[in-house]
């Protein structure tokens, strides 16, 4: 999934070469384990050449980073759709600053959605049909609580995806968005209650660890359990 452009290459080169080699090796050693399951052969002549893959049936295959990034792309589609709908007619009680920042967040989520769409290219899932029928967009508390849910769930999804990433460049890209989602989460949470910007006790169900001040982190299966009710399009989720 790494882009063949000079910027990507320059950035990749900036990270430690020796670490990169160690990781390449670990991936290679890991591949030998796959042989026991009859997936691939470790004879180097038989390592399959990369054949172009085109995603035609909204497949999210968690076997590799493409699936992981498609999963993130699906979540970004939900988030962007939420803020597009919410900001079209924000509750009257929203302050000018809240309106400004909600519009910012909408634009960030659109940027994320469009970025992943472009980054994944033909391997991307399609444009999903999203359903927010359970959310009352005229009610300020309902809008803030929904935003809060999406942002905290987003951070939890990103943090877990970063750790699952096989490619280091993808890892960095996901981490670049994860902290922006965390900034959103802190802002939205603090609109509900001043101390909620990092209330890790409250966030324990999403995997937060208050004792060690570690943020939320949730496996894709758990995230999708909560997110799938917003997605009407049928997704083909495999190797989860």
């Amino acid at each position, binding site marked *: 999934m790494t882009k063949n*452009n000079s*910027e990507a290459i320059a950035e990749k080169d900036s990270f*430690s070469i020796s670490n990169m080699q160690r990781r390449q090796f670990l991936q290679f050693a*890991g591949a030998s384990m796959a042989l026991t399951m009859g997936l691939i052969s470790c004879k180097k002549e038989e390592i399959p050449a990369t054949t172009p893959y085109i995603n035609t049936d909204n497949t999210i295959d968690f076997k590799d980073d493409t699936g992981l990034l498609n999963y993130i792309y699906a979540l970004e589609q939900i988030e962007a759709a939420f803020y597009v709908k919410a900001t079209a007619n924000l509750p009257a009680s929203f302050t000018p*600053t809240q309106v400004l920042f909600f519009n910012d967040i909408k634009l960030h989520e*659109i940027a994320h959605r469009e970025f992943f769409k472009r980054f994944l290219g033909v391997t991307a899932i399609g444009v999903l049909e999203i359903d927010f029928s359970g959310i009352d967009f005229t009610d300020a508390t309902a809008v803030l609580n929904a935003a809060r849910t999406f942002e905290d769930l987003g951070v939890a999804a990103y943090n877990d995806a970063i750790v699952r990433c096989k490619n280091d460049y993808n890892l*960095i890209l996901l981490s670049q968005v994860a902290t922006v989602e965390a900034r959103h989460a802190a802002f939205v949470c603090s609109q509900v209650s001043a101390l909620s910007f*990092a209330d890790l006790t409250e966030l324990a169900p999403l995997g937060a*660890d208050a004792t060690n001040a570690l943020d939320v982190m949730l496996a894709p299966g758990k995230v999708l359990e909560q997110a799938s009710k917003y997605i009407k399009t049928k997704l083909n989720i495999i190797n989860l």
Partner: protein
Amino acid sequence: MNMNILNIIEETEKVDGAVYERLGPRRSALKHLLNVGQKVSLAAIPLSLSTMFQKTYSQTTPNTASIDSLNLVLALGYMQFQFYNNALTATPALIPVADKPIITTLRDQEQAHINVLTKAITDLGGTPRALMPYANFDYTRVNANVTTNYGTFLRTAVVLEDLSERAYKGQLITLMGTPVLATAVRIHTIEARHSAQLRQMVNKLQIATLKYLRPWVSIRRNDADGSDLLPITGNDSMIGVLNPVYDIDAGLLNRETKTIQAGIELIGIGGNINLTAGPAAESFDEYLLTATVKTAANLFIKTGFQLT
């Protein structure tokens, strides 16, 4: 099967010339494996081999790179903890009563990170850096009135949190494949939450040049109407000397005002004309690598205690 194993070793040698030395005592195990191949289940061999390699590379090599990474961010943990702790204990009148619980949470979470990092370094067989006391630091870069002016205090805190978040991001690849990666990732989104909270508090004070400061790292804005200040220069702290915190690593493009990610321009992407330079830059945070992190951190560390 023996042929295949040799292929693996051969491939390994291409990326790690020292593979045979690294295997160390396992070389005899490898020979044994090659010799007894016919006697054990063929299917079991690749698994054993894989386990052996995982052990060789994941556990038996001293993980000095990870230890160095964690010790770097540990210094930033002390930098932040001492800053909040001093305000809460030495100059408590600085902080409005209503904000005390917020600053206390920030202080306590930084202490928790110090504890987690210290334990992680010890678990890796490393030596955690010695405690850095308040006296090691110089927090006057935003303004010398940092202990008497709450706005200066908050602005300084924002910079420390933003620096820390970028610093963690710059260490993630080094930590890839280790259990500490998840810890670092989960700390770095906490630092982002801290920054967002503090940036809102600065915004509320409506300080000149910062009237449109965002919870997210952004470009400079006009105080009059909040429009993007173009051309894009500097950083949204509006303090030039703090540029290393928000700027590039030498030779790279990772300035916080960057709008092109992985070669994809975010300004106007997908026909969204409202996605101007400001929101495009805000939508991605940027990593910062070790050398620049040290340069930026040393802005806040006194001579004699600086990171080298």
